[in-house]
């Protein structure tokens, strides 16, 4: 009896050891391969045997895991669209997948084309959902700076049942030529931040809010630097000097908690931004 028990314990030990080794054997390669052979959504749909919704939930958890893993490591999201496509084929009503997915595809994966494709699929399957055309317009407004398309989709969202005044307000912003204003972009991100229940969406919105606030601060500080230059005919040594001469009441702190500084006669942020697409879009617009 005792002998058998010991043998069983040893065998379990060996089993755990083998499992541990297998888990650590080229883990990343396995993960990529696993996703490469992830079947198509339609294939899974047929095989789901009435459990489509549950299968979509499982793919959702896998998507979150995929995003988390790559965010912490290489920040490459090659299969993100593929997973979201499968998920939304299994359950075309999974609105959160379209919303969060499109934001992450644009912001993190730098693939606004895939984000647009995903939301278009969502709009096709959920024609009465206002938030999908709103996000479509949002991506065009904030990331792609395509204000004409953005306005069309904001208006479309406003006409959907149970739509709040949010899309109508944004369509009006564009009509009154407030496009491109940092203030209006800030307000849009604040709207998204306040209306979203999802922590990842809120985190992305928070990043952009801080970025825009910082840009607004820099615009304001550079105006004051110009005043200083005109008055003293030289660059200020630092921002404190503006306060010293009564041009500025106090030096604002960056939204990230750091301090602005003067570089080559201009106020600059010390924060290293990670909003590549946003910057590209702005530069492209200039």
């Amino acid at each position, binding site marked *: 009896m005792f002998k058998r028990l010991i043998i069983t314990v040893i065998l379990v030990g060996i089993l755990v050891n083998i499992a541990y080794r297998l888990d650590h054997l080229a883990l990343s390669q396995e993960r990529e391969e696993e996703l490469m052979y992830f079947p198509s959504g339609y294939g899974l749909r047929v095989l789901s*045997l*009435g459990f*489509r*919704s549950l299968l979509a*939930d499982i793919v959702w958890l896998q998507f979150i895991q995929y995003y988390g893993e790559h965010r912490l490591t290489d920040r490459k999201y090659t299969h993100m669209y593929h997973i979201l496509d499968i998920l939304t084929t299994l*359950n075309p009503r999974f609105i959160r997948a379209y919303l969060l997915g499109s934001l992450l595809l644009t912001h993190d994966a730098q693939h606004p084309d895939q984000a647009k494709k995903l939301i278009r699929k969502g709009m096709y399957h959920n024609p009465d959902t206002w938030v999908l055309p709103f996000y479509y317009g949002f991506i065009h407004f904030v990331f792609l700076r395509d204000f004409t398309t953005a306005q069309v989709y904001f208006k479309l969202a406003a006409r959907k049942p149970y739509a709040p005044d949010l899309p109508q307000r944004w369509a009006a912003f564009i009509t009154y030529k407030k496009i491109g204003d940092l203030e209006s972009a800030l307000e849009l991100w604040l709207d998204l931040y306040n209306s979203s229940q999802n922590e*990842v969406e809120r985190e992305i919105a928070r990043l952009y809010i801080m970025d825009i606030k910082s840009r607004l601060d820099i615009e304001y500080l550079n105006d004051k630097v110009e005043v200083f230059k005109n008055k003293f005919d030289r660059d200020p040594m630092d921002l404190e000097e503006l306060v010293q001469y009564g041009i500025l009441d106090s030096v604002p702190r960056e939204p990230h908690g750091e301090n602005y500084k003067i570089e080559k006669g201009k106020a600059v942020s010390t924060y290293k931004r990670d909003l590549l697409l946003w910057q590209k879009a702005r530069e492209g617009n200039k």
Partner: protein
Amino acid sequence: MTRIKAIALNTLKESLRQRILIVLVVFAVGLIIVSLFIGPFALGEMPHIIRDTGLAASSFIGMVIVLVIGSRLIYHDIKERTIYTVITRPIRRSEIVLGKFLGLALLVLLIEIGFFVIHLLTIYIQEGVVELRLFIVLPLTLLELFVILGFLFVFSSSSTPVLATIMGIIFYLVGHAAPDIRTFAFSMSTGLLSVLMKGIYYIIPNLEYLNLKLPIVYGLPIYADHIVFALCYGIVYTVILLFVSTILIERREFT
């Protein structure tokens, strides 16, 4: 009627003796694990996930119970020769089949109600809401299980439990693939194959009629006429299968 009731109650008691109700504990533990451990990773989708998991688990575990018990019930009686003690009495074979079916159906009903109550409680503890809308799924899930049980009765009346189980699984798979079979059949141009495919489509059980899990969980509109027709479909299909099963068992000679 008294005879059918006696057989049904006896079948229920026999099944309960196999400690089958332990599945309720498995179900409850499973749901608690899902709600406690998966919740933080679901990014706001937990309400959907807990509902999907509960409904899918109650359907899946119910199916396993039906396959395990249903496939052996009649075969076991024939093999163990316990059926002789019944057929020698003034009782019709169709009454035996019906009694056994009702006994097992009662067991499935008890278990599914147990699942439903546990599911509601889990949602209530998590969100503080009583999700009575989920109740719509209960009769439909039961009918889905009864249809498969009917198939098992048909095959276990004339073959072995293994074959009956395999056939039960096949009809379960085919039943859920029915909408795809329909698409295939109706996309074909006219001809013998098209007629054949359409015939097959209407004969196989379309279990997707009885599957309203997704619209229930996502709060989509559900139409009363669909529910009524789906319930009728399930009932009529089960009755046909029981009818075939009684024919088969009446034709069988016990030696």
